[in-house]
């Protein structure tokens, strides 16, 4: 009896402790989420509102080849971003984690400094670098072109012709999947480096020495010990990069131009231009489902 009463009192106390969080999550997460779900089952009204005739038509519409193609490209861009972040971020994290302890915080700080600038401005900076009149192309069509012209006059060789022609037009950098990937990698790299750093820094180095003592050279001790031991960091970093990349909006909007769009831009245009709230909500839901499923599978694989 008494124990039961005490147990109940404990439960109430705990509920009291988490009530602010609970309140926040219910009001600002669960309720809006249910609203989106409800809207996704409605129909677009004539003047852009929502008509409450329940239908699954919005979900069916998503499987139109047009949207599937955009979705496929979105997944590809997000995967490429994750892989590039991993391939560049892990070595960087390893480098920082193996510096003397006095250096590490300073190096991590250097990594964070660019992120004190507003995200929009940083993405805009990439636009200034990549566009046709951007930093790279000014050099390409300017100095590079002139150099080719000069070289062609000084040393007549057949290779100058095509090179001269190539430098006469800007490189197609802006408005491509590549531009989006560059922007996303730049944006999310720290999210890969930090979890990887945490797991590498925690790694007991005597395990690496043990592997080397047991005839594993540097490469094999990396493959058999360091990599599996730091897998939690790799999994966490990959999820932290993949999810925001999949739902990216600003980066493809600025760097993808009109040609290269991602699913986030489609959702935006459904809400803001087409005023088709139900369809936009349906796409949002499909995106969330894919993220959830992908993350679950990935975590399961990564922790095995």
């Amino acid at each position, binding site marked *: 009896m008494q124990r039961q009463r005490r147990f109940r009192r404990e439960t109430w106390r705990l509920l009291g402790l988490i009530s602010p969080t609970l309140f926040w999550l219910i009001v600002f997460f669960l309720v809006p989420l249910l609203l989106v779900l409800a809207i996704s089952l409605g129909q677009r009204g004539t003047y852009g509102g929502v008509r409450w005739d329940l239908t699954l038509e919005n979900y069916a519409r998503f499987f139109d080849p047009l949207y599937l193609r955009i979705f496929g490209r979105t997944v590809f861009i997000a995967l490429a971003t994750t892989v590039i972040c991993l391939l560049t971020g892990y070595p960087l994290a390893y480098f920082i984690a193996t510096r003397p302890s006095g250096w590490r915080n300073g190096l991590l700080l250097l990594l964070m400094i660019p992120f004190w600038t507003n995200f929009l401005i940083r993405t805009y900076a990439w636009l200034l670098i990549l566009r046709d009149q951007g930093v790279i192309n000014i050099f390409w069509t300017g100095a590079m072109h002139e150099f080719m012209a000069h070289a062609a006059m000084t040393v007549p060789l057949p290779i100058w012709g095509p090179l001269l022609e190539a430098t006469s037009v800007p490189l197609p950098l802006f408005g491509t999947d590549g531009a989006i990937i560059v922007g996303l990698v730049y944006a999310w790299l720290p999210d890969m480096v930090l979890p990887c750093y945490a797991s590498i820094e925690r790694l007991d180095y005597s395990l690496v*020495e043990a592997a080397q003592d047991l*005839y*594993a*050279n540097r490469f094999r001790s990396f493959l*058999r010990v360091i990599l599996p*031991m730091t897998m939690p960091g790799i999994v966490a970093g990959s999820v932290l990069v993949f999810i925001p990349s999949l739902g990216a909006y600003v980066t493809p909007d600025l760097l993808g131009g009109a040609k290269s769009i991602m699913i986030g831009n489609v959702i935006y245009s459904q809400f803001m231009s087409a005023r088709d709230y139900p369809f936009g909500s349906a796409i949002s839901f499909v995106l969330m489902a894919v993220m959830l499923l992908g993350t679950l599978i990935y975590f399961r694989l990564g922790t095995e």
Partner: protein
Amino acid sequence: MPEHAVKLTRVSKHFGSVTAVDDVSLSIPDGRFFSLLGPSGCGKTTTLRLIAGFELPTAGEVYIGGKLQGEIPPYRRPVNTVFQNYALFPHMTVYDNVAFGLQMRKVPKEEARQRVLEALEMVRLPGMENRKPDQLSGGQQQRVALARALVNRPKVLLLDEPLGALDLKLRKAMQLELKALQHRVGITFVYVTHDQEEALTMSDRIAVMNRGAVLQLGTPEEIYERPANRFVADFIGETNFMEGQVKGIRAGEAVVVVDGVLTIHVSAERAVGMNEEATVAIRPEKISLHVEIPDPRAVPGVVEEVIYTGTDTRHLVRLTENVVVTVRQQNVGVGAPVCFPVGTRVYVHWQSESARLLMA
């Protein structure tokens, strides 16, 4: 077969301005249990890491099996290490841990399997192959670490305080087991420890180190009975030190006068000069207590304190104003031990051969 499993010639290792190992020359005989003994920070672990190849010497050479090691990396040296914290791979099973070295050297699967099972049998851990290290007790992890190293049949097995994390009872049992194991496999063991009792129990030979230098090299008996200097005498076991001046030399014996009044006879193995400052070291268990004067050389004193420790009784006896010696008697008899109450006037006596004359 070379005579020495490991040889260090004038090896030094500096870390920045710190000298971890200072001009050490060592020959470790083949097939023996060899210990590096010293307090923490004395350079014993660094010496071991120099042999394993985890560190490269700043000066001097390391030979293993007569072969100069130079800058050969750890994974190409014919030695294996048992690490202080075991360093078992937590993401692998016991089997995979033990098989790791064989896999890296591409030993055929079937042979590897046989050797792994044999090794686990040898450390008395059969049937544990599929456990993960965190499912084992400290003692079992210790055995896995041992099997993981021994399965490779190294020329030399390096052990870095492998029993440090075990409780006393288990440590004692493992000491004997390790010693027996070494005897059975015949592999040279190089064992690092700060525990003098452990080193005495297990080793064929001991190198006592302090501040990066080897102070004495010898069998446990030599180290204990004939310490080369004050540090060794003090570090190994318990010792009474008495400082004085040499006042007479004859027939391999020196007469040392302590505190101006106390005359001590001590056998002198090395040449000493008259009036030289000298320290006499004498083990507490080599001294006997008497009520009547047993020998003209016995020294009178007064019992100041009696300490009963179970296996033996210690009397602290004041000989002069500044000299108090500890006398240890084993409690061999039945019933209450023989002891002299505080304040008793007694004579302390020892054979002049059991006292050691050390440099001051």
